């Protein structure tokens, strides 16, 4: 399941204060400890996990603000590649 993979990536690279596998999909990840720099690692790991590339137009703070937001963006990029 895509969201599980995203949560695994966050757990490995997000350096968050809580386990991202346990948080609500709408929870604010920045409030939970995700830093701007960690979001770079999360993005690169998501690119590897889903064989996608984040274009400049989705490099927004809001893209990484919640599991839900990440899933929406990744889903769109995966569909665009397919």
């Amino acid at each position, binding site marked *: 399941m895509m969201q599980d993979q995203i949560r695994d990536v966050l757990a490995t*690279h997000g*350096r968050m204060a809580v386990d991202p596998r346990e948080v609500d999909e709408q929870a604010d990840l920045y409030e939970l400890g995700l*830093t*701007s*720099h*960690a979001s*770079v*690692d999360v*993005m*690169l*790991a998501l690119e590897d996990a889903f064989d996608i590339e984040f274009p*400049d*137009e*989705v*490099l*927004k*703070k*809001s893209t990484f603000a919640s599991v839900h937001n990440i899933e929406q963006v990744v889903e769109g990029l995966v569909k665009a590649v397919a």
Partner: protein
Amino acid sequence: MITLPGEVDGHRVRVGCDVVAIEDVQDSLAAFGDRYLRKVFTASEINDCRGRNRVHRLAARFAAKEAVIKAFAEPDMPFPWREIEVTRDGPLPLLRLSGTLAEQAQHQGWASSSLSLSHADCHAMAVVLVVCSPVNDGEAGAGAR
């Protein structure tokens, strides 16, 4: 109680700051190598950071990029990190914007900036101060507030 205005003589002032853990940059380099570098830094920045204190310099530049993003104060704006470049004029770091961020800076009336970088063993930091041109009524977009 008073509310202090964010402008001086009609010139809006913007400020941004950020701090980055050196260890985080080290780990990103170990995990993603050149992909990390090419995604975040320009070729010129990568070149400037060669040699001693490479990771500290990269961390300071990342902090500068985030400081600039904060100075824009547009949470929903795309932030291609490579459109924010730290260059040097002798000992002084300078800010260079390109692409969409240069356009947005123009839209917000950015007229001049001052950038300061620093690092210790564990962290690097940056502060950017931006002075904007006076904005006439009707010219200011939402992003200029």
